[in-house]
Structure formats: structure tokens, C-alpha cells
């Protein structure tokens, strides 16, 4: 790790002010991602602002939304009765993330901001437009089995790593942010940026802005949902492909669907066309397969990850069958 200064923030405003005045400052909560990246010299902040003492850990129902504080730990969110009842797919995604130790450490805000696991991003000797803009992409034409097939650009094909962001995108979760210019709320699907020509810019946050929490609108049919994660090992592994599915079914007909895919996109992927196709359709395998085709429209393999196109379709079909059953 590079040398850095450490400061423990006593208030949200103090945390924002401290970060605002140092362009190379970073916030630290669980530390599981940033300290890992600092050890391998991918991150080298001049100042770490510790936000762990801020009162941002609450999980509670507020009106029509479940509010999840930015510092709520993954295991606490997964175990919370309101979350388990309202959106099982969120609890399942969390329980299948990382390891029990890491889930006790990692915060919800930090999880949304976690960096890609792309091996070229994590190797400072390799080219990577996300880590070192303009240096090229090692994954295109390289070892790209884990890389994305949706939302890619000629500059970057790195997969977004979060599990829980996948059901949260499907649920239209709102990210609440405080910053030097005040506070604002951003729908999660607008929060992430596609890599395009600027893969180093991953979210719409500006320097000094701090995630304070998430507001997840209660979906009337959110209880009928699941998250299916396909990976190389049964436990403690990132997704090759995953699907979050919530269905409103009456008399064998789908009234509404919410879908999102993980492990295949440069951002958590919301296939709205597939949701539209399922609306009013019979809850049958044929309809599910049609929706999966629609969901993967525009998908592109890069050689070693070509298999993900078929895998993502099958993962979505199976998740739809699980929820419809």
C-alpha cells in the first residue's frame, strides 16, 4: 500500500468536506474492496475518510419504500425480516455474495461501488482503460472468459461484479447521495454508466459525494421473486451469469415482470424489452424462452466468453420457471 492519511469522520458533512478538499481522497466503510485494491496498487488514495461511525446503518420500512442505510452490512440486510418478506431476491443475492466474513464487513453503499474483478484491471502491469485510461484493453483478445457480453465497448468489456445490484436494478431502487452541492436521489439504473469511451467513469457520482442509503420501492409482487446465480463453485465465487426475477401472475397469465441479469453486463443489466414481452403473456416455457432471446439482444461474445450468451438465456428461463412454479 502507498502511504496515506487517515481521518475518522464525526459527521456526514465533515466526511464530505474532508473528501472534497483532497482530490485523491476515498471513503472507507467495510474496506473489503478498497484495501484489497490498495494492496495491489490499483488504488492509491492520499486520504482515507472512515465513515463507519456515521449513523447510516438502519434498515426500515418508510412509507412505500424499504430504506437501507449505506452502512448496513450485507449479512444484516439479508437477515432483515422486512427485506426477506418484501424482496426475497435481494436476500438471496446477498446470501450468495462473497463469504460470511466479508458479508459481515461489506456495506451496502460500498457493494454498489465495488470495482470489477477483471484480471487486467487488477494487474497494474497489464493494459486497462478503466484503471489507466488510454492504455488499451487486455481482455479484448485476451483471457476473457469472465468478461461481459452486454453493454461492452471497444475500450472495455469488464463485468460489473455486484450480486445485490442486480435485483436492486430490477426493483428501481433509488440511491440517496449527499455531497458538496447538496443531496440528490438517483434511480440505480441511471446511477451506473456504460463504459463507452470512458470506462474509468463507472457511476454518475462526483468527487466528494457520499452514498447515505438506498430507498427500495415495495413492489406488490416482490415477494414472488428469486435470484439464480450460476458460478464455477457452489459457494464463494462471482457469477458467470445470474438472473433476478419477480413475476405477477394471475390465472396463468403474467401481468407484470421485473427482470435483471448479472455476471454478463458491464453494468447490472435490466432487459426492459423482455419485461415488456412477458406482460400479458402466458407463464409458459415458450414465453420464457422468447423473453430470454429478447433479453440477450445485442449480446456479443469475445471468444472465451461466447458461452455466456447461451448460459444467460438458460439462467433467465430457469429463474422464470422457478418463480412461476
Amino acid at each position: 500500500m502507498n502511504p496515506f492519511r487517515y481521518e475518522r469522520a464525526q459527521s456526514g458533512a465533515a466526511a464530505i468536506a474532508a473528501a472534497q478538499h483532497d482530490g485523491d481522497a476515498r471513503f472507507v466503510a467495510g474496506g473489503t474492496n478498497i484495501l484489497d485494491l490498495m494492496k495491489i496498487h490499483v488504488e492509491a488514495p492520499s486520504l482515507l475518510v472512515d465513515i463507519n461511525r456515521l449513523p447510516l446503518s438502519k434498515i426500515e420500512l418508510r412509507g412505500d419504500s424499504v430504506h437501507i442505510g449505506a452502512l448496513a452490512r450485507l449479512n444484516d440486510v439479508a437477515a432483515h425480516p422486512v427485506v426477506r418478506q418484501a424482496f426475497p431476491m435481494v436476500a438471496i443475492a446477498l446470501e450468495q455474495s462473497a463469504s460470511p466474513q466479508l458479508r459481515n464487513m461489506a456495506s451496502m453503499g460500498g457493494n454498489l461501488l465495488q470495482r470489477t474483478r477483471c484480471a487486467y484491471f487488477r494487474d497494474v502491469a497489464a493494459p486497462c482503460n478503466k484503471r489507466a485510461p488510454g492504455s488499451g484493453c487486455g481482455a479484448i483478445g485476451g483471457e476473457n472468459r469472465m468478461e461481459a457480453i452486454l453493454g461492452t465497448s471497444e475500450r472495455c468489456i469488464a463485468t460489473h461484479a455486484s450480486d445485490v445490484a442486480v435485483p436492486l436494478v430490477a426493483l428501481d431502487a433509488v440511491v440517496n447521495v449527499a455531497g458538496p452541492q447538496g443531496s440528490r436521489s438517483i434511480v440505480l439504473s441511471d446511477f451506473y454508466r456504460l463504459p463507452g469511451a470512458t470506462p474509468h467513469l463507472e457511476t454518475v457520482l462526483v468527487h466528494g459525494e457520499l452514498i447515505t442509503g438506498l430507498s427500495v420501492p415495495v413492489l406488490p409482487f416482490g415477494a414472488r421473486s428469486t435470484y439464480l446465480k450460476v458460478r464455477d463453485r457452489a459457494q464463494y465465487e462471482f457469477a458467470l451469469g445470474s438472473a433476478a426475477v419477480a413475476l405477477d401472475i394471475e390465472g396463468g397469465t403474467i401481468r407484470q415482470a421485473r427482470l435483471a441479469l448479472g455476471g454478463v453486463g458491464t453494468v447490472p443489466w435490466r432487459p426492459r424489452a423482455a419485461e415488456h414481452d412477458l406482460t400479458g403473456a402466458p407463464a409458459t416455457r415458450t414465453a420464457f424462452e422468447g423473453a430470454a432471446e429478447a433479453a440477450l439482444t445485442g449480446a456479443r461474445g469475445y471468444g472465451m466468453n461466447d458461452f455466456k450468451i447461451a448460459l444467460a438465456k438458460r439462467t433467465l428461463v430457469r429463474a422464470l420457471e422457478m418463480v412461476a412454479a
Partner: protein
Amino acid sequence: MARTSLSAVALQLSGSGAAVSEPAGPASATATPTFVLDVNGREHQLTVDARVTLLDALRDRLGLTGTKKGCDQGTCGACTVLVNGRRIDSCLTLAVMHEGDRVTTIEGLASGEQLHPIQAAFIKNDAFQCGYCTPGQLMSAVGMVNEGHAIDRNTVREQMSGNICRCGCYPHIVDAVLDWKGRS
């Protein structure tokens, strides 16, 4: 996107009921903080580089070498300790972040010469060979039981997945945990 003033932000952040605890440790930025660390019920005053992880502070500053360094990147679980009763990987957190927390290491598990029941169960069930991962396995098992997860074989396997054993003692480790909780 609604915008409010910074003072409204401060109000919003401080108005959620929970008071921020009394300022402790470095509120102003420093590269070498001085702070107090509570480990196994004993308080230690430390002045260390901010880069020192909790794991390195335990091993290199406090001489508590029972906690092991395996991967140093949060993958293997050999460095598992309890912080306020919850299991974490001590390699992926800074020592200075834990002022005011209760840290429990493998050295704090037994009562004098009296082994903790999970330690006795590991011996009885032959749950280790080389022993390098064992302190982390034991702390993780205690943390898992604190979390209420020692229910059945599959749950224990899933819940112990953050601890790697290259000797491959997994079946006996699960036996030991279930034996301890009377669920074998």
C-alpha cells in the same frame, strides 16, 4: 433530482436518531494514528502507520501470532477474528478502524487451560492436519454459531465457505461443529 443545501444534508445525516459516539481517535487526518485497541479484554495503546491492518497489528505489534496470514486478500479466512462478536477477515481492515471495538482472537477463546468446546470438538473429530487454517476455522465456527447458522450439514458447509483448508479436512470440520452443537 432534488437538491437541498449542505446544511440540510448535515441535518438529515444527524437527524436519524442514533447519535454518533463520542469522538475517539483521529478526527483530523494523520498518517500515524495513536489509538487504543481492545483485544481479548485487554487494552493496548498503539501508534502505528495507518496502513497497518488489524491482522498485522495483532501479529507484529501485539505478538498474538495465533491469527494466521494466508492470502492477505480476504480469500482464505486464516485471519478470521471476532469484532464485537462478529467474524471478519482481519487482513482487509485497518487496525485504526477498530478503536472502541472488542476484538477476540484465538488466544482469547480458551479459559486458561480449559479449552473452548469448539477446540475440544476439533481435537475429538480430528478436524485438522497441518493446523495452519485451524485458528481461523475455530473463530469462524464461533462466529457462525453466534449468527445462529449451525443448523445442519449443508448450512454449516455454506457458512464455513470463507475458510479454506488445503489439507482438505472439511468433512471433519463439519463433524466438529455439529458435534459441538449436539446436531451430529
